[in-house]
């Protein structure tokens, strides 16, 4: 009898095991609750796989980009606006995986560990999100791109705020085209190219090569280069865009001379070039705050001199991500400290008060940054012309990325030196030809809008 009573203590072990299980459940509920509650299968938030009840998404000026009303998701009024902000706002079914709808679905659901999604249930709307995006600027950039696909992004290099972010092709979320998944013109439509795109950089890569030269060739500024339209590497030829004759380093940069930069690249060698590029964020996983960027890739050939030369001028296997390059421009403009472009201004009341801290993702030595700054300013002043970027005190670099069997991509990366306009811009227009054409013009249009916004 007494023995049996003692053996009853086995139940204690059972109770303990049970409570441990309950503990595990509660802990995983606390840890994963927001992910679980904001899952696509949650009918409080989604209907038929698309978001119906969630917080409002505002742009920086308080324009409603998406909101919920009567179990329906309502988008901005104008079609151009809806198209231009599609990728930052995101679709409601989560196809655009970098869109705010999908990426911040837990926030939008209004989930809290204490109340679950009670607020959403009561009000039909969750936590509101305010973006840094100025939807008007997006509209301008979208229109400026015209028929070209590509990406445009503008950010404040002193705060990291991403003010404009457009990706094309796009579609109207309110009147979703029936042939969205079949029509060739919509290929890649769910990709936000600002975040997930990678492109051959062309001459904008010369900024990285120049940085490497500044840091590794002490007499680079007293060198002269000879360009006769072609540069023989011994195992191949690098072809230049023109015959530039005799030029110094700054002129070579202004001319975007392939001969000079191929020569510099070969002198530096693959290892040093790669080291500089990797210090600037190539080949590593970068995050623009919560958003994962596609990796920029740079692996110059150690075998072939001509391939190395081509890599140094942004061809060969080199690929860059627009957001990453925007942060590089930010670093140059901001004295070496490149902030991550941050799309979000606030998520809910707390972050409205506290604000979001900028986060450095690219660091360049201040001396190098200063010299690059001079070179980029010289590009605009001496080569492209300040008349192209009226009143902007623009610094920048164009790029013409050569693609096999197709028209080149047009690139422009740059920033304004004005104290009252601390903005950097990146633009890629696919198959639009020279960088001095479409990309420069689009960049200027968006920057002019911000100039008005910032100074008036």
């Amino acid at each position, binding site marked *: 009898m007494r023995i049996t009573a003692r053996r009853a203590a086995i*139940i204690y072990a059972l*109770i303990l095991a049970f409570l441990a299980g309950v503990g595990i459940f*509660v802990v995983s509920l606390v840890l994963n609750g927001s992910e679980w509650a904001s899952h696509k*299968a949650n009918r409080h938030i989604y209907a038929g796989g698309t978001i119906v009840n969630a917080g409002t998404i505002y742009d920086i000026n308080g324009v409603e980009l998406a909101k919920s009303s009567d179990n329906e998701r309502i988008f901005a009024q104008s079609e151009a606006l809806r198209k231009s902000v599609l990728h930052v706002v995101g679709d409601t079914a989560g196809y655009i995986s970098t869109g705010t709808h999908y990426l911040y679905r837990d926030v939008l659901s209004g989930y809290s560990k204490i109340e*679950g*999604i009670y607020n959403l249930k009561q009000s039909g709307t969750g936590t509101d999100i305010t973006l840094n995006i100025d939807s008007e600027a997006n509209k301008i950039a979208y229109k400026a791109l015209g028929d070209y696909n590509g990406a445009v992004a503008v950010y404040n290099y002193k705060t990291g705020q991403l003010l404009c972010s457009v990706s094309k092709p796009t579609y109207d979320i309110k009147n979703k085209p029936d042939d969205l998944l079949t029509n060739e013109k919509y290929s890649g439509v769910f990709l936000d190219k600002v975040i997930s795109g990678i492109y051959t950089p062309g001459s904008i890569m010369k900024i990285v090569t120049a940085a490497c030269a500044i840091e590794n060739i002490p007499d680079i500024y007293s060198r002269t280069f000879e360009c006769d339209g072609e540069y023989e590497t011994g195992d191949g030829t690098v072809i230049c865009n023109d015959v530039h004759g005799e030029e110094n380093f700054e002129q070579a940069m202004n001319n975007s001379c392939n001969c000079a930069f191929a020569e510099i690249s070969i002198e530096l060698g693959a290892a040093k070039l790669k080291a500089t590029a990797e210090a600037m964020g190539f080949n590593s996983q970068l995050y623009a705050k919560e958003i994962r960027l596609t990796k920029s890739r740079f692996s110059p050939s150690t075998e072939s001199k001509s391939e190395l030369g081509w890599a140094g001028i942004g061809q060969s296997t080199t690929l860059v991500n627009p957001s990453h390059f925007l942060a590089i421009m930010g670093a140059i403009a901001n004295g070496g400290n490149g902030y991550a472009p941050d799309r979000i201004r606030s998520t809910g009341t707390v972050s409205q008060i506290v604000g979001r801290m900028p986060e450095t993702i690219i660091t360049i030595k201040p001396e190098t940054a200063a010299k690059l700054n001079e070179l980029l300013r010289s590009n605009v002043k001496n080569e492209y012309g300040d008349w192209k970027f009226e009143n902007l005190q623009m610094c920048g670099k164009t790029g013409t990325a050569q693609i096999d069997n197709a028209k080149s991509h047009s690139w422009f990366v740059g920033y304004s030196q004005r104290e009252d306009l601390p903005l950097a811009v990146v633009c890629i227009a696919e198959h639009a030809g020279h960088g001095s054409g479409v990309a420069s013009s689009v960049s200027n249009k968006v920057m002019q809008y911000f100039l008005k916004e910032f100074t008036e």
Partner: protein
Amino acid sequence: MAETAARKPHFQQITVMTLMTAFQLICAACVLCRQEELSLTMVYIFFGYIAAEWIYMLIGALVTGNDYFELEAIAFFLSGIGLTVCASFSESYAIKQLIAIGLGLAVYLIMLLLIKDVHFASILRYPAAVGSVGVLALNLVLAQNINGTLNWIDLGFFSIQPSELVKVAFILVGAVTLEKLLSSVSLTKYIIFSLGCVGALFLMKDFGTALIFFFTFILIAFMRSGDIRTIALICTVALMGAALIIYFKPYVANRFAAYRHVWDFIDTTGYQQTRVLIYSASGGLFGLGIGEGYLRDVYAASTDLVFGLICEEMGLIIGLAVLLSFAAIAFFAIRSAKTSASTFYAIAAVSAAGMLLFQLSLNIFGITDLLPLTGVTLPFVSRGGSSMLCSWGLLAYIRAAGAPFEPPKPDIAVKKVQKAAPPKVKTKGGAAS
């Protein structure tokens, strides 16, 4: 009564009843307010239930002269939540559930009477054993006829799940057999009986219930022998058996393929578990409100998944209160076992508590993907008559051992056993321990 309360701290029956009534009134209000037209039947159901609780407690106190009703209070609390869930679905669910609770209470009282006397209980084991095997065999035949893997017998008016009733008998047979006649013959008989039950359930593909029986068998065996090595041996053999089954019948394993990967099978075999997780998280601590949830639209929401539904609509706090109630029942069972008058009661109480707790674990950890989903009910709370009868029947074993805060009873049974058959106990008992 005031004197006893002053002498030692014990269960404050009136306070608990008042609080519980308040809770149940709030539940009733939540359900009633959601109805488009106030249904009088629903009002009667709730008030009838609350009145029944009070009447039971008051009469009980008058008859027994004490108020050791903590177990019943817990069972009423749990059943009340189950009733609320049923009422939030439909009136007919609520009526059926109320009847089930009433029958459960009747089973409870009858059981208490039947096993009041150890000798009478020991006689009962033959009909219980034969009846159990018979009913399972019948079930097996009928279930095959209906082409189902379901463990149900449809009687037209209502359907019953025989394995639920067998659970109650299983403990009686086990506890009596091992308490009274500790001969290898009776032990063998009990093992054969257990194998029969577990085997029948396996053939019905009701693995969850089979597992519960197996676990209870182990528990009873341990209570009697105290031999960890034997238990370990039995478990090893069982595990090997399970491995063999999975090897030869891979579809058995397929049923559990979603285990720990429910999010990969979100619209197939992980459907229920993922929905439980999604909606439990949605509920937060305080819930979205009774009737406001979406888990209720998922299959088996009021039966197997009822814990998830409680978390979503009433909140995690009440969900945890349900779970802790069972821990309290098990805790009381240990205390009762220590004060019980006979080994029979101690074994029965402990195995009943173990069975309840084990079934609860299979249920809530199954639907939340911490264990494989086996489709067993949440005792007292899940909708369904058979489960309710079984839960109250099991509770009777715990109560029969004595109230947890009751002073120890004189040790009758041991004396009687020693008087009746001293040589048997000395030789075999000594060998066993």
